[in-house]
């Protein structure tokens, strides 16, 4: 047992809900206490669903347990009557699975006309990703039917799903690419697919499964069972997209050549045709990366942490296409750690690679590295705020702020532009920074205020502060302003020194240096937006040199030492 504050992955039943809510005429039924239906909110609030998510809780209460009541058959009848689904997937919860009931029999008793599948997702062995991938693969195995290929080249796109990271945008990007290539999309799944669509999967010439987390196993199954070629790379960045396009064309032409009446081979059209207006560069990244302004990025170190697909794709993109040094990378999908590590050979050393699903370990690593850019999940944003670091979100889990309206794919040429924009607006300041560094705060001092996070989670909306506004503000401000009460470790130090979950060696002995007035005054001259980081670096310098008091002199020495 351990203390947990944050989870990277959702639960197994959340994974099931994501697949069911992606598909048409399918429905998830949770055999669970009523509160387990909270996953609904994640869909209705983050995705702002105008319909009711395809999930219903068949309530199990304490009274039901005492009386031996099983409400599942009745719930299933109600769901069928109201939703008319083709398929209902029943899943137990972390509590009801311990009851070891036979849900198959209960489901059968309901006497439904539609198909009912009891999905065995043990929440103690499986989390969101494995449950979603497992269920989707099982559905593809169940429904995919052998049939002739489409007469013209076509692809399946497997993986886009409800609450998938920028999934809707990625799908638009992929559809644009296939339209430009003149290749038909046979089936997209699970996004918008019915069980009939799953039956049609083997008609495609090629299956695209860009996400390591969802769709890959189904693509591999289709290849093994029906000979449908599979392309499981993620086209993240310009170079990977170009290679991916070559692979798409080559694989489709290989299939075409096998046909009795082959259509004429596909050719890659001029690259400008992939742009939005059909006459420009398909991506602005290669030129952008070479501009003078981007020079200042070449020394900025980045730390990347997320799911498998995005950690690999974004790390390579930053290194290969923007020329940024990689301070470290890792994934919370511990089961995918070997794959991610092997993909990042040459980018990240084993010592700089982190595979953990414990939030505090990631926070500690970031605290030690103090990179100029953190690419992570919404949790790393919290860590970034604590250490005053620049953070961009590149992977689930997300936050309402990541669910924006404009087209923001991560895949394809369009995606490369989006990621590069995000990097440059997150890191801020090229030439501008030199000016401010030269002349001090340039009158910006007045702008300084403690950063306060937006009140934002799903349930706790604006009114939260109404309960105890003082507590909220005080708690929030404390970690960011760096002034800890006497006898308390100051912000960043607290967690790296005190966190018991950390597997990292912490520098010992930990002394928390004290600032003198002239030291503070000198620190004030450092531009406010880098001041927090400077404070951290100087304190680190002081600790490493056994200095207990930071005077102006120490600050200058530290600046010199750090080359700042």
């Amino acid at each position: 047992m351990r203390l947990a504050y944050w989870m990277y992955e959702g639960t197994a039943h959340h994974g099931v809900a994501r697949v069911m809510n992606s598909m048409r005429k399918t429905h998830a039924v949770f055999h669970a206490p009523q509160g387990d239906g909270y996953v609904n909110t994640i869909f209705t609030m983050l995705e702002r669903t105008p319909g009711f998510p395809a999930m219903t809780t068949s309530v199990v209460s304490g009274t039901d347990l005492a009386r031996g009541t099983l409400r599942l058959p009745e719930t299933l009848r109600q769901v069928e009557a109201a939703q008319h689904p083709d398929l209902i997937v029943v899943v137990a919860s972390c509590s009801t699975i311990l009851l070891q009931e036979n849900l198959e029999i209960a489901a059968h008793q309901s006497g439904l006309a539609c198909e009912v599948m009891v999905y065995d997702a043990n929440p103690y062995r499986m989390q969101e990703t494995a449950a979603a991938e497992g269920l989707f693969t099982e559905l593809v195995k169940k429904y995919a039917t052998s049939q002739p290929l489409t007469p013209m080249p076509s692809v399946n796109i497997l993986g886009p799903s409800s609450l998938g990271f920028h999934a809707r945008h990625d799908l638009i990007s992929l559809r644009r690419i296939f339209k430009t290539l003149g290749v038909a999309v046979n089936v997209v799944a699970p996004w918008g697919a019915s069980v009939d669509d799953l039956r049609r999967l083997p008609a495609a010439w090629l299956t695209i499964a860009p996400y390591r987390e969802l769709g890959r196993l189904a693509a591999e199954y289709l290849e093994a069972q029906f000979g449908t070629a599979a392309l499981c790379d993620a086209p993240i960045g310009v170079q990977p997209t170009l290679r991916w396009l070559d692979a798409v064309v080559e694989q489709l032409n290989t299939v075409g050549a096998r046909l009795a009446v082959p259509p004429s081979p596909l050719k890659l059209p001029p690259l400008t045709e992939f742009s939005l207006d059909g006459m420009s560069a398909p991506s602005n990244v290669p030129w952008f990366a070479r501009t003078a302004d981007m020079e200042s990025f070449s020394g900025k170190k980045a730390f990347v942490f997320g799911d498998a697909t995005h950690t690999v794709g974004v790390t390579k993109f930053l290194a290969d296409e923007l020329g940024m040094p990689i301070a470290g990378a890792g994934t919370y999908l511990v089961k995918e750690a070997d794959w991610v590590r092997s993909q990042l050979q040459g980018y990240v050393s084993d010592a700089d690679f982190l595979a953990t699903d414990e939030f505090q370990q990631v926070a500690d690593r970031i605290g030690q590295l103090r990179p100029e850019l953190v690419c992570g999940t919404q949790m790393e944003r919290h860590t970034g705020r604590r250490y005053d670091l620049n953070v961009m979100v590149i992977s689930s889990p997300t936050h309402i702020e990541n669910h924006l309206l404009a087209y923001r794919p991560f895949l394809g040429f369009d995606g490369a532009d989006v990621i590069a924009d995000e990097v440059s607006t997150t890191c801020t300041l090229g030439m501008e920074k030199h000016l401010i560094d030269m002349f001090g705060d340039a009158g910006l001092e007045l702008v300084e205020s403690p950063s306060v996070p937006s009140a934002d989670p799903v349930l706790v909306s604006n009114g939260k502060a109404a309960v105890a506004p003082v507590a909220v503000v005080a708690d929030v401000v404390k970690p960011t302003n760096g002034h800890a009460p006497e006898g308390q470790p100051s912000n960043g130090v607290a967690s790296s020194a005190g966190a018991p979950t950390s597997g990292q060696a912490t520098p010992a002995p930990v002394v928390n240096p004290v600032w003198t007035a002239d030291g503070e005054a000198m620190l004030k001259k450092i531009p406010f937006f880098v001041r927090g980081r400077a404070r951290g670096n100087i304190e680190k310098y002081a600790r490493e040199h056994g200095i207990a008091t930071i005077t102006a002199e120490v600050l200058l020495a530290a600046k010199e030492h750090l080359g700042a």
Partner: protein
Amino acid sequence: MPPKAQFTREDGIYHSFCGLVSVGWLYQKIKDSFFLILGTHTCAHLLQNTMGVMIFARPRFAISLLEEADLSSAQPAIADQIAEITREHHPSVIFLLSSCTPEVMKVEFEGLAQSVSTPEVPVLFVPASGLDFTFSQSEDSVLQALIPFCPEAPPDDKRVVFLGSVNDAIADDFLFEASRLGIPVAGFLPANHFHELPPIGPGTIIAPLQPFLAKVANQLTNDRGATVMSSLFPFGPDGCRAFWEDLAAHFDLKVDLSEREAASWARIKEHTDLLKGKKVFLSADTLLELPLARFIRAAGAEVLECSTPYINRRFHARELALLDGVRLVEQANFERQLRSIAEEQPDLVISNIITANPLIGHGVVAKWGTEFIFSPIHGWAGVNTLVSLFTRALRRHARLDPLGNDPVWMAGVMPGAPEIIPLTRG
């Protein structure tokens, strides 16, 4: 015996949260507390998605995570975690909350809490499992756990204790109002700090501020002989008048607040004009629904239905009496409610947060009920906030262009539901 109010009980297939969400406000209210939930990944995922922002504040709540290997052990070992929490957070009290899985495992929580409790840092068991508790209900459990720590008041200590967690501004408002009426106040349960709990004894009048605290009120009578005031809850001009007049009567003070009430209604006339004759349907899950329905009805609206997780005939007696003729439903069936909404065409639906966006997507003007829990709607000072919560959705909807009624503007948002059939006509 309280009058036999008419309500129906359905099968409870609606969307809601479990009692653990109460932690979201209680850990902030009791400032030197820590909430430890013995639970699973599911509990952690719930809290993360409902209270996500609080991580930033070094939250004073955490999950003691039950993993597969822990399922076989008869009694979970939490001593190390309690030590860690004490070391890192220095709480004055730790609440140990149950959840569904340990409940099914039949963990003996009382004993577990006792085994790690010390006189310096008591560890108090709080039943909160989703098998038995919904949403705000577990505040009731937390307050029950605090009773033994309230000093015993002597029989001649005749003062009021306000029951329910409210923020400091509301508390000040109630203190001020009480002193104006000459009502002596012993304090609030809960107080802001563990060691500030009010003395409670046979002379104490308990004035419930929240409608979800029936059990603790009852227990205060049983354990301490305190008198629980039966009145309206202090929401809206009508509720506040009844609340204060009834409370004053307990202290043999004759108070007539009719002018105060009239002035309060006059101040929100702009809102009540808008609400007059509007058809309102309450389908929320916070347990505030009965007093909200009573208020909105007094404000001139027609309440088509008021559903709420639980109705307590005695604790809610006065509210129920004023809701005579309104369709009251306990443990509603949400699909049935959707059919009723389609049939009866409400102007406003107070829903829970889970269903608000989909209801709006179906052409319904919906307001999420959760916001009432997190807003200062108590007392005279809260009247404007309270009524504004009802009218904001109506006003905003009226102001927006009519484009939103065309399903084309929702196309592509929800992959599994390409066509949404509106519940509303025109």
